[in-house]
């Protein structure tokens, strides 16, 4: 969308900046050698921006590590060549590679906070790179570092020079990482999922900055992402990878209009976007087989299932002084030492209704869902569930009460939420064993029934979590949540850790289950495109308060709050 014409791009005629030929990367594992990248060919011209798109395990990151020659010790380049401005990187000695890294080719990584040395001032970290590549003498290196910080639009760079990474926000850290990468004005920048884990608004700012800086310096960029939309929005050319192979290479204008490869088409369809239904996410053949979406309107006159009023959650600010005071229990904690994670919110969820709870990280949406789940205690307010104030029951005691059956949850991270030492069947059976009076004999049959319901093949029932794929784990988590036939399920970003194609299937499954079992959903998410597909109504939260709530259609198309508008504007729009 911000793409300006780039006249210096001269594909095909001049020597490409980067020429990857027949690259094969192998990893030594306990099961023998595995090829992570198979005979990949990619070329990148000077000034060009290239997107490499693929789902997890497609080999997209490994390819870039191979280019930089920073594969870990199990990996090695088995075949092919990597030419950088005509120089064979595969044959280059390590000292020469070290010279190139940071000076001629740089890389920025996912999770910016982790990418910075936590106990070194960011100014010094930038200086390390500058000095390493002899960009500047010792006496002026600090000025240069500040200048570099300024270039990535860090306010008050002189102060920030002395800051440690933990003192900066995630977006700010990513700017520092970019500064680090661009400090020596390299010719090539490889950005590996640079915006994953950042909020949409921050994501946009970071991407815009990268594009702007690389454009003005005439740099070439490789953007590695799982998000086809992002790639298409920012890149000249897109390479799609699947299982170590390049399946398609096209200019980004064409790839959305005329995807050549079936896999690209599948990916494209699975990417949530405005103006489609859930079924449109599935590959065409599957979508055709799926039954049509039920369109059950919520009965307005029926009493709502859940009524939340003035819900507040406060946390004491962490620090030694408070904990000592708490230990002796004498003085009450002063007002200003309290942090309000949830600041007096009220909303309802009707029976059979699906409500989206949207907001950026730290807005209080997770705290809200934990309180509703009765996993943590509220500070004040009421949570009326089916007319009963379950908020008054201490969380400690709630686990063994019959009400527990009625509210269940599907967790964000399917791996983390499964006990590593329980089989899938044991995990699904756990709530049944604890909260229902099912007989031992009937247990297995019930587990199989549930597995069938969530589309988990029965042979997976006796596997442990680490033997299951992400999608399978998600299904186990869902089966566990519906085992007790609850009235309300809270879905806490249930697809955030999944690849888009898996996400498409899981979202459809959730929709089908809701229709089938007549449950209500509270869908907690940061992804407005997904919320749009699944929810009847949406609640937008910011800094612990509800800024806007209403029917999904209305909020999406005519947002009333400025914050909602910002959120919507930040979603990358592929050129469809």
């Amino acid at each position: 969308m911000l793409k300006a014409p780039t006249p210096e791009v001269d594909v095909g005629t001049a020597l490409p900046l980067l020429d990857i030929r027949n690259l094969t990367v192998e990893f030594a594992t306990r099961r023998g050698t595995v090829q992570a990248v198979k005979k990949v060919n990619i070329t990148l011209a000077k000034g060009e921006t290239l997107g490499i798109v693929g789902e997890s395990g497609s080999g997209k990151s490994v390819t870039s590590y191979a280019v930089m020659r920073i594969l870990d010790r199990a990996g090695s380049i088995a075949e092919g060549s990597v030419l950088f401005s005509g120089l064979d990187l595969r044959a280059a000695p390590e000292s020469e590679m070290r010279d190139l890294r940071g000076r001629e080719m740089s890389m920025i990584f996912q999770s910016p906070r982790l990418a910075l040395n936590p106990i070194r001032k960011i100014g010094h970290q930038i200086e390390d790179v500058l000095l390493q590549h002899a960009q500047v003498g010792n006496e002026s290196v600090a000025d240069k570092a500040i200048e570099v910080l300024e270039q990535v639009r860090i306010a008050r760079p002189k102060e920030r020079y002395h800051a440690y990474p933990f003192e900066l926000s995630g977006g700010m850290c990513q700017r520092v990482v970019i500064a680090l990468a661009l400090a020596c004005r390299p010719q090539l920048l490889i950005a590996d999922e640079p915006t994953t884990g950042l909020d949409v608004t921050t994501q946009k700012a970071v991407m815009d900055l990268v594009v702007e800086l690389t454009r003005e310096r005439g740099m070439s960029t490789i953007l590695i992402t799982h998000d086809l939309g992002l790639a298409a929005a920012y890149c000249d050319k897109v390479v799609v990878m699947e299982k170590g192979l390049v399946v398609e290479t096209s200019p980004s204008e064409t790839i959305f209009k005329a995807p050549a490869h079936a896999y690209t088409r599948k990916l494209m369809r699975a990417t949530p976007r405005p103006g489609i239904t859930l079924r449109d996410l599935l590959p065409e053949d599957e979508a055709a087989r799926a039954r049509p979406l039920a369109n059950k309107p919520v009965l307005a006159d029926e009493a709502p299932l859940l009524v939340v009023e003035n819900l507040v959650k406060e946390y004491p600010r962490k620090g030694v002084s408070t904990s000592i005071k708490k230990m002796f229990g004498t003085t009450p904690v002063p007002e200003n030492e309290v942090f309000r994670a949830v600041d007096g919110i009220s909303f309802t969820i009707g029976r059979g209704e699906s409500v989206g709870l949207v907001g950026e990280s730290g807005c209080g949406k997770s705290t809200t869902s934990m309180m509703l789940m009765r996993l943590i205690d509220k500070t004040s307010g009421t949570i009326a569930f089916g007319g009963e104030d379950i908020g008054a029951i201490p969380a400690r005691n709630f686990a063994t009460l019959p009400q527990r059956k009625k509210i269940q949850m599907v967790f964000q991270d399917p791996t983390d939420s499964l006990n590593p030492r329980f089989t899938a069947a044991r995990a699904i059976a756990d709530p049944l064993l604890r909260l229902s009076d099912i007989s031992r004999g009937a247990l297995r049959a019930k587990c199989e029934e549930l597995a069938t319901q969530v589309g988990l093949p029965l042979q997976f029932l006796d596997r442990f979590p680490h033997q299951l794929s992400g999608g399978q784990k998600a299904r186990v988590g869902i089966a566990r949540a519906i085992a007790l036939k609850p009235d309300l399920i809270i879905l806490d970003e249930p697809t955030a850790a999944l690849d888009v194609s898996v996400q498409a299937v899981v979202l459809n499954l959730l929709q089908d289950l809701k229709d089938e079992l007549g449950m209500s959903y509270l869908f907690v998410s940061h992804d407005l495109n997904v919320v749009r597909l699944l929810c009847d109504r949406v609640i937008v939260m910011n800094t612990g308060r509800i800024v806007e709530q209403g029917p999904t259609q209305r909020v999406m198309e005519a947002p009333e709050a400025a914050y909602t508008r910002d959120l919507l504007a930040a979603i990358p729009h592929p050129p469809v």
Partner: protein
Amino acid sequence: MTETVTIAPVAAPKHSSNSVLSHALYIMKDNPVTGLAFGLFALIALLALFGPYIVPYDPLASNTAQALKAPSMAHWFGTDQLGRDIFSRVIVATRLDFIIAIASVILVFIMGGFAGIAAGFFGGWTDRIVSRIADTIMAFPLFVLAMGIVAALGNTVTNIVIATAIVNFPLYVRVARAEANVRREAGFVQAARLSGNGDYRILLAHILPNIMPIMMVQISLTMGYAILNAAGLSFIGLGVKPPTPEWGIMVAEGAANIISGEWWIALFPGAALMIAVFTFNLLGDGLRDLVDPQRRT
């Protein structure tokens, strides 16, 4: 502890145990030292079981005519001051040392492991009290504390085991507490709560089995330390009762003879002791590799 659910009809468990086995084999192949440790451990366990039935001499029988004989075909490790066969004594001692090691580990695991898990999981006062106790023990010079306990309670095998367990208590508390604390907010613990598990059931059925692998590492290190501790106590005269063969006491007794040239009296039990402690320590590293998810490529 874990509720066994009778819902696994087919060959699935075999699949999983196979993968553990193959993983273990992989670790050993990858790291020859760990392979060696596993092998030695098996040898020590076998000697502890069958040692007394395979030795050539009665380990307690003196033979003053054969006293202080250097290693020979008749006495592979030589004889001690009373003419007892050192080879037989070293082999037979394996069982006692193994028992001291295992018993103290079990004891400290029950005390420290559970206290630590509870402290990490519940936090608050439980944590404060358990941590204070652990800190207090830690503030003692540990060996002196062990000495004091054995001196006060009397020098029996039981008391040596108790002393070793108490001395190791803080380490177990630390490890168990940290691990339980990390898992306290883990998704699967929350999920278990949603499934209707009470606190104690979560502690025992969900958290404990998950931190067992990491505790195993601590356990194998403690086993080595237990034997060293017993040897140290023997050196200052607080070891097991004579004439019971025990490596530490044999080393302590033989140590005085090194300078007079009868090196074998201390050397062989010393070597046995060293190999055992060495094995337990390396086993700890190996087990760590085995349970470290990062290594499960």
